[in-house]
């Protein structure tokens, strides 16, 4: 299976990968899956077996490697966006719900702090626990999804 080495593109390098090329998709996958802050265009991909790859290796610039074929590119383009979208939507829903509950908890805590008669009567600890674990369900799916992407594309991180 053809592998590509991914490394940082030099700031003054004017060449970027053609949109829709295997190299461009490879950079996009690395950018998304490792949640890099720069744009995908700040990365560059070269076939692992070429002369450029040897230079990159010698310089120790390799960020990671990825296995990429037309078939795998199709999975990235056609299958993965649906899951990404579903995860993003769920993540927004979780954030809204957690925000609402935080606000209500804050109101409750304010009224408890202002109350002399009910001081220490209501604990509300289990809600705090929920707030901590609430997002874990989605994170778990997301982690599992990212792990699967790592497996499909045989991602290997070096630096």
């Amino acid at each position, binding site marked *: 299976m053809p592998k590509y080495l991914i490394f940082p593109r030099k700031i003054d390098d004017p060449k970027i990968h053609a949109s829709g090329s295997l190299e461009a998709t490879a950079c996009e996958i690395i950018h998304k899956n490792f949640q890099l802050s720069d744009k995908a265009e700040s990365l560059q991909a070269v076939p692992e077996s070429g002369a450029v790859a040897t230079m990159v290796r010698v310089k120790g610039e390799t960020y990671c490697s990825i296995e990429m074929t037309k078939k795998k590119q199709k999975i990235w383009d056609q299958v993965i966006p649906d899951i990404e979208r579903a995860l993003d939507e*769920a993540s927004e829903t979780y954030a809204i719900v957690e925000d609402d509950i935080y606000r209500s908890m804050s109101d409750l805590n304010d009224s408890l702090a202002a109350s002399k008669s009910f001081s220490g009567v209501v604990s*509300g600890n289990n809600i705090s626990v929920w707030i901590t674990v609430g997002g874990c369900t989605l994170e*778990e*799916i997301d982690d599992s999804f990212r792990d699967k992407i790592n497996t499909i594309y045989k991602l290997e991180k070096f630096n």
Partner: protein
Amino acid sequence: MTKYFVFKNETNGEQKNVVGSREEIACDIATAVGEEAFPKGYYIAFPQENDLALPDSMSEYLQFTVEIDDEREKIWIEEASILLKNLKNLDDQIREASSILYSATLKVEKTVSNCAHFQDLDYLGTKGVDSIFENIDDSGVSEFIDYVYSLFEVEAFQNQNA
């Protein structure tokens, strides 16, 4: 200190407690400890006069007795009613959150299971949502109610006629 007798109001709205009165507070307390979402005006309260016992003909309709004096009236108005509102609000949100998060997670699960190459993902998903909410009893409203019971010396009666 005055004891208030609280009954289910079956006067079809002909008789009501005066807004802001201690009778109304007694009814609010009865509604709070009863934990049912009864509307305002569901109960009606009367003060005990001259420490007289409730006539037998009335006692079989009695739902609650509540003790209210100046200090307790102030506590209800300035602290307990606000706390109750905030506790119920939080409880409502938690209940709502359970179904919203379940639906959102289920949608992700369905999308994942419909995608070739990703059907074998390992996660708890909706089961995880269920287990989170199983571990939450409530916002603390039951502790609050227990305390209201003792603070206002509430007595609840189970009358078949009530």
